[in-house]
């Protein structure tokens, strides 16, 4: 999966498991950018009585680099506090939850949002004022030493309850989830709570040595034992996740505080990633609740989807989660020679990918997509009429790179840039982008001819798909995405989705 349980250590710590991050120019509010980071993956909707929540002991961070050095210039920090209204009941709710203040709602969670900027505190703003007991302890681990200034964006913001069922959480989206969308000062919107997982993938096929179901009777892919051709199975279509979503004015994240005038403006491209951190030491005592101490240590991160999952070897995945994008040159060899490219072209489907198998040079296309961004001119105007660039600079760093001057498409392609739609992955990432197909095709060489004119892609590269019918709409029982903030769809409730 994109990054659900992608590394040995974090697979045992779902509350801190950063499963996906998305960044896109808001489709109905083009002057803003929306960033969504997902945690606590693979939630069965009926998973009570202790329904899912964020970790009070986890620091959730969204980082933005706006000057191309792969170091954070801006961080949005989210910290959560849980409470029980009635510790003497075993129930999550003692009756229907009709509002965010309903006394029937027992297990609640509120959160704070803090923005940290590189550079000294502007004198006209003055030092930040924290409420008593505010859990602020400085910039997140990815911030390099140096002056920073801090703004408290919101405190005591309610996270909605999980979607339990029609008796417990009737009218969920209107009465609960949408009420938890917070409009804050300076044009900022935030939401933090349970949602349906927007990521879709045929897990069973992918992890069975990439035997993509639609291709099983296609000769180059038909390897023994024979399997029937079929549409893919969307393994996450009825699973929930916890989303942290923030929408901010574009002018608040660019390096000069201005809206980029064109895709080639020096302020147009930002790098985005998110992370989760825990305190270094936990003391577990039989006589009292656990206590934590020490500095925050990053335990999970995510930039480009599938980077740690597919590019980083198993023995290094935990280290990658603890590292920062600015140090990702360590993984350059894995990007230049992706193991998956060798696997599909030399082991699994050699007759489908002879040209890929014969390609011996370092994969400059994958380096551009995943580690530096794509320079102007690589994607010809014959392919994307506006041209394309999301290069951040020479630093090798796994970040989502979003060119803020690319406007959302009125007819988007789930294949993003590969589908001639520059407003999708790898230009940032939208909720509905078919990441698995895009990255499979890219790894199979579909983008390589743009970078290396001597290479012609195997025809099979553009045939790689999980689906005969895209699963985004028709096969789902409810809309997977919303057309408004926070865009992530209503979580499935446990009564109507008792088994998933």
């Amino acid at each position: 999966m994109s990054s659900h349980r992608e590394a040995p250590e974090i697979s045992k710590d779902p509350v801190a498991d950063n499963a996906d991050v998305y960044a896109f120019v808001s489709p109905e509010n083009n002057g803003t950018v929306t960033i969504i980071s997902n945690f606590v993956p693979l939630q069965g909707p009926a998973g009570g009585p202790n329904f899912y929540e964020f970790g009070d002991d986890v620091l959730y961070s969204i980082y933005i680099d706006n000057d191309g050095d792969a170091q954070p210039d801006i961080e949005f920090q989210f910290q959560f506090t849980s409470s029980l209204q009635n510790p003497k009941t075993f129930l999550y709710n003692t009756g229907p939850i009709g509002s965010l203040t309903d006394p029937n709602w027992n297990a609640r969670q509120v959160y704070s949002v803090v923005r940290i900027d590189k550079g000294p505190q502007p004198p006209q703003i003055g030092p930040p004022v924290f409420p008593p007991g505010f859990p602020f302890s400085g910039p997140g681990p990815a911030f390099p030493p140096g002056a920073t200034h801090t703004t408290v964006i919101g405190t005591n913001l309610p996270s909605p309850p999980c979607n339990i069922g029609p008796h417990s959480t009737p009218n969920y989206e209107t009465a609960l989830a949408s009420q938890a969308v917070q409009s804050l000062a300076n044009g900022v919107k935030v939401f933090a709570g349970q949602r349906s997982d927007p990521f879709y993938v045929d897990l069973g096929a992918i992890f069975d040595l990439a035997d993509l179901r639609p291709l099983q009777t296609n000769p180059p892919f038909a390897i023994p034992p024979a399997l029937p051709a079929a549409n893919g199975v969307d393994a996450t279509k009825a699973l929930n996740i916890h989303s942290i979503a923030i929408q901010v004015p574009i002018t608040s994240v660019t390096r000069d505080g201005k809206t980029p005038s064109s895709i080639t403006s020096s302020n147009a491209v930002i790098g985005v990633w998110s992370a989760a951190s825990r305190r270094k030491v936990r003391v577990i005592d039989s006589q009292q609740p656990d206590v934590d101490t020490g500095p925050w240590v990053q335990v999970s991160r995510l930039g480009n989807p599938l980077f740690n999952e597919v590019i980083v070897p198993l023995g290094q995945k935990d280290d990658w989660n603890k590292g920062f994008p600015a140090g990702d040159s360590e993984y350059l060899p894995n990007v230049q020679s992706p193991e998956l490219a060798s696997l599909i072209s030399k082991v699994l489907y050699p007759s489908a990918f002879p040209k890929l198998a014969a390609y011996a040079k370092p994969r400059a296309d994958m380096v551009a997509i995943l580690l530096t961004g794509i320079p102007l001119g690589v994607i010809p105007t014959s392919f994307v009429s506006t041209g394309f660039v999301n290069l951040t600079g020479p630093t090798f760093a796994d970040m989502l790179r979003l060119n803020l001057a690319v406007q959302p498409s009125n007819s988007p392609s789930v294949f993003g840039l590969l589908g001639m739609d520059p407003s999708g992955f790898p230009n940032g990432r939208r909720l509905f982008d078919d990441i698995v197909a895009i990255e499979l095709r890219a790894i199979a060489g579909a983008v390589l001819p743009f970078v290396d004119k001597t290479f012609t892609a195997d025809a099979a590269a553009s045939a790689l798909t999980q689906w005969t019918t895209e699963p985004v709409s028709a096969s789902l029982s409810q809309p997977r995405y919303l057309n408004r903030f926070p865009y992530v769809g209503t979580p499935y409730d446990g009564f109507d989705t008792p088994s998933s």
Partner: protein
Amino acid sequence: MKTFSRRSFLKRTGVAAGAAAVTASPALAAAVEPAAVETPPSGPIPHEPIVAVVRDAGLGEVTVLAGTTEKTYKDRTLVKRLLKVAATNRGANAGEVG
């Protein structure tokens, strides 16, 4: 962010009453400071406990975590006392029947 010093660590953990003497002369301090005395806990573990990790006993390196800070010190006296107490712990455990 909480501030922390080696003196406050010693005071908080009850390792030594004569911390001033420790800084003046580690060898002398080790000789005159009373030995650690095992005692039942007087209360719960603090909300953010101060934790010392003997990083390298041979070099006398001890890492102290307090609040969101972490610093490593070279303090042979402190390391020696911690090791001595740890050895007492281990000795007690060795006598237990599982």
